């Protein structure tokens, strides 16, 4: 069945981007109008396609790489979510980007990103997937580079890290295609043997690097400071998370059919736990609104990877539910950060304080989203985290411990952030700050509303969005929506949250300010040493990798120069020396020449006779 309609969500944003490029600059507001229209149209298309099934295939690069798209529940759901975030963030950006340099480039990159995301989600062939997926590298680079004057360095860092991961994914795709004999995602079934395992790991690198997991994360905090803020809200906070976790789920559920007994399950869970704890510890000590949020964007990806890695239905459902919840509250949080930046002129927490009185609506959105990310009932993050906890505890107590510790520090850092930015005394220079404009407020309020809805009424998203993804798998009795069944875990969560609150109150009282409320953790005996190294970027894999590349380059350049010396000096010297030697044979002595001639003739005779 051929359904060219699947082209629509790819084509709409792309055509709009092309239109933007051709509109002359002097038509004011044309770029905003075209972008808004395209994002709205994209949302309508995604809404219409949601819940339907369709396939499309056309010949393409050949040799197994055919242009095949497949719409089914999961891809439709991700596409709808992406379209929603695309629309909300675009509405927000229309005001946020006004008067900024490169606004047009921003909208072009934004729309192209939407188009590529739709393509990657719909792809039913690994090459088609990679084509759209890796194409996001360019918009990633572009959107970061148009930020602050030196932002291109961060853009380069992002490009290199993500580009290397995409190359790994390319190798994984080649390997998977070779082993399975097909590149059609829905047809690939692979065992986790030696080569299959390698393919799995390479594909997972591609997926989790998109989701922003450690150790492929270090560009995100830098981008938070350098890139225009809506970039953070759209790519690292929502689209990339959706894509990365979507593909991780496809790899583990469809292509490799992971079971709890396989080694891949603890492999994923360990990555998830390390990401949760290490990133949140870094978030704790940040002194910049956006940078702090970006570390949480990394840390929360850990919960999703942990949930899927448990290979238990409740964990997978929890992980996927957390994916959509995270995209909601993290987008909302970044948008509040943008409002603060635009209204107060800075996101440095040392220069903020008491904004709640001046920006009450923004503060309300912040409260909802922060409560969601901290896992406070009855907001959405609470329910998805409880499901991940339940699955993690069933696998091993240690995984649960890491996840619970993550919760404690998440709550602690949001208490600190909220306290430092919105509460406390209002600074003199912030006296004239006003509430943000309504086109920026509206998306925040809407998303915060969805956070509440997905929490209070969690059976709706679980039944309509998440559970159909697993199909019959979820019939095992786990993961039923509604109030979490494991009462013990809920009590522990409540204790943890209370502990975080008390910790904050005590810390703030000790240090005398909300910003310094967690300084006692920062100065703790072992931690302070680790923190000090982390701030010198000792643990940044990018820095280490670049050092290796630099040393290798030095070595190979030396090899290359040595070879060149052989050509430029060695051969020349050899020929000159040979010339001198041969020259000396020409003594001018008559009899010597006769001997030469006779010897030559003899040699010729031997050759002819032979």
């Amino acid at each position, binding site marked *: 069945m051929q359904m060219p309609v699947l082209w629509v969500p790819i084509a709409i944003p792309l055509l709009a981007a092309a239109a933007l490029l051709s509109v002359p600059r002097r038509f004011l507001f044309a770029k905003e109008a075209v972008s808004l229209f395209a994002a709205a149209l994209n949302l309508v298309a995604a809404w219409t396609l949601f819940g339907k099934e369709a396939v499309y295939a056309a010949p393409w690069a050949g040799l197994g790489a055919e242009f095949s798209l497949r719409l089914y529940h999961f891809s439709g759901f991700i596409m709808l979510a992406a379209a929603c975030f695309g629309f909300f963030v675009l509405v927000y950006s229309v005001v946020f980007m006004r008067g900024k340099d490169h606004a047009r480039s921003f909208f072009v990159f934004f729309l192209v990103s939407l188009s590529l995301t739709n393509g990657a989600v719909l792809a039913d062939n690994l090459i088609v997937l990679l084509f759209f997926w890796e*194409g996001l590298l360019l918009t990633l680079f572009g959107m970061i580079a148009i930020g602050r004057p030196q932002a291109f360095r961060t853009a380069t860092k992002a490009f290199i890290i993500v580009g290397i991961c995409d190359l790994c994914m390319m190798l994984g795709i080649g390997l998977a295609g070779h082993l399975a004999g097909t590149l059609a995602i829905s047809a690939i079934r692979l065992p986790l043997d030696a080569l299959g395992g390698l393919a799995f790991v390479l594909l997972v690198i591609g997926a989790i690097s998109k989701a922003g997991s450690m150790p492929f994360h270090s560009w995100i905090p830098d981008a938070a400071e350098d890139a225009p803020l809506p970039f953070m809200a759209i790519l690292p906070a929502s689209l990339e998370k959706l894509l990365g976790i979507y593909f991780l789920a496809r790899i583990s559920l469809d292509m490799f059919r992971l079971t709890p007994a396989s080694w891949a399950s603890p492999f994923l869970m360990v990555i998830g736990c390390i990401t949760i704890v290490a990133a949140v510890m870094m978030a704790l000590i940040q002194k910049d609104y956006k940078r702090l949020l970006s570390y949480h964007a990394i840390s929360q990806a850990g919960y999703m990877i942990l949930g899927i890695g448990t290979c238990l239905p409740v964990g997978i459902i929890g992980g996927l539910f957390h994916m959509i919840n995270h995209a909601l509250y993290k987008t909302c949080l970044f948008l509040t950060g943008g409002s603060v930046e635009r209204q107060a002129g800075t996101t440095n927490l040392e220069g903020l304080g008491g904004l709640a009185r001046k920006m009450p609506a923004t503060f309300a959105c912040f409260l909802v989203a922060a409560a969601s990310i901290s896992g406070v009932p009855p907001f959405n993050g609470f329910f998805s985290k409880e499901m991940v906890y339940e699955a993690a505890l069933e696998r091993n107590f240690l995984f649960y411990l890491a996840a619970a510790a993550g919760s404690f520090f998440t709550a602690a850092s949001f208490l600190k952030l909220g306290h430092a930015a919105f509460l406390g005394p209002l600074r003199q220079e912030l006296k004239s700050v006003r509430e943000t404009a309504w086109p920026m407020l509206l998306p925040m309020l809407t998303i915060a509303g969805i956070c509440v809805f997905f929490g209070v009424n969690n059976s709706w998203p679980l039944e309509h969005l998440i559970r159909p993804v697993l199909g019959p798998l979820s019939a095992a009795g786990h993961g039923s929506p509604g109030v979490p069944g494991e009462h013990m875990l809920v009590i522990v969560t409540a204790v943890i949250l209370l502990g975080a609150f008390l910790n904050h109150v005590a810390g703030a009282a000790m240090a005398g300010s909300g910003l310094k409320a967690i300084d006692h953790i920062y100065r703790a005996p072992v931690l302070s040493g680790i923190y000090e190294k982390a701030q010198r970027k000792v643990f940044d894999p990018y820095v280490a990798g670049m050092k290796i590349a630099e040393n290798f*380059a030095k070595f190979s350049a030396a090899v290359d120069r040595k070879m060149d010396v052989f050509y430029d000096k060695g051969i020349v010297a050899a020929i000159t020396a040979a010339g001198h030697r041969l020259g000396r044979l020409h003594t001018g002595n008559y009899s010597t020449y006769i001997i030469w001639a006779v010897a030559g003739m003899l040699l010729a005779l031997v050759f002819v006779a032979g």
Partner: protein
Amino acid sequence: MLSCILLVSIVVPFFGAFLLPVLGRVSRGLRPISALAFVLASLACSCLFIPSVLKGETVVFHMAFPLGLNLSLAADGLSVFMAITSALISAVIILYSFGYISHYENQNEYYTMVVLFLGSMMGLVFSSNLVFLYLFWEVTAVASWRLIGFFRERGFVQKADKAFLVTFLGALAMLLGFILLYRQTGSFDLSVVREYFQHAPFPGVVVVLVLAGIFSKSATLPFHTWLPDAGVAPSPVTALLHAAVLVKIGVYVFARLFVATFPLDVRWNEAVLIVAALSALVSAGAALRETDLKRIIAYSTISQIAFIFLGLASGTVVGLVGALLYILMHGLAKAGLFLCAGIVEQNTHTRDITKMGGLVKSMPWTAMAFLFCAVSVMGVPPFGGFFSKYMVIAGALGARPLAIVLVFLAGAVLTILYLLRAFNAVFMGEAPASPAKEGSPVMVGSVVFLGLLSLCGGVFIFYPSCFAQVAARQMMGAW
């Protein structure tokens, strides 16, 4: 009829080249335009073979000469693919030269040599006689020798000599190999030689000798150092010779002899791959250290040529298709990079990337074209380089040791590093004191065209891939 066109596609540029000085006497404007016309004629002739190739037919032209020196030409998938690629890129480069070379002396020599070069390139790809292959090979060497030393400074001429001597000595080794083949088979004709070796083992010494020629021409370790040195040539020349066309000669002959005619066995292929892998790594590392823009791009060429060998020596259809697409996509993108470097060099009067910066503001179109070509070489979609890079790697997976593929992956990582480094150093960051302006419209137009071709090569991959598949199947099967 078609077989006559085969002859025409070679004769027009080959002999037309010598007419150019005469035409230049008639009118100065006529010279570049007729140069372009000769190349376009050759391109058009090559395109006429597309239908027959897609049908799987091979057009041949034969003219008997004594001593086995028959002039025999054949247009099969591989040669037509190469011919179209070379002529297309050459045509864009000549267009660019209208702007670049217009204020230099010795334009007669320039246009004659460029068109002669293209003519002998066409002769080389269509030849199915080893002696003619060698002859055309050497004509390209002579033409490139004159073109590298075009500016006539002492150091430049020495570098031209170096390029000539290295490739010439390699070619002599290759000729020796051909003569050995003649002694064994009694013919220089590829079809006869091929027949003979259907039943006899192919002599290893010939493989080594011919490989020496191929590696020296394709600037592969350890015969590669002439290529970065040849960056002293005018930019369109470096684009033409050292990125787009000349270095592809060695690769083409490898494909023609060792893939399509007498396939090498696995051990030889793996030996070639080890050399290529080392070449890819060492040159990529050197590119990361280099500060001369044109030398960076030249090292990049050495590194990318190795990827083409990876595809050719993989022994799989996917690898072969990838290698052919690589020749096309890399040619387009790398020519674009060299031509951008030419614009930058003419407007900033330096090639040292540490003395440049922030040019994206004053040269936005050049910057865009450079970025398009660079990401195509890196293999980022939606650019054409993505498919070729994926295919050569996928083709080698499973057919060749995984370790070799991993080395190439490291090479691909380094490609991203050095190209981004060059782009950032030239176009991003702080602008230097003296402001630069955008190049002339025809030059900027040419590079933007190449950038867009790289993009189209990816978006419309169906067409080149279709053709390359026909060619690859032909190479793997009957010739």
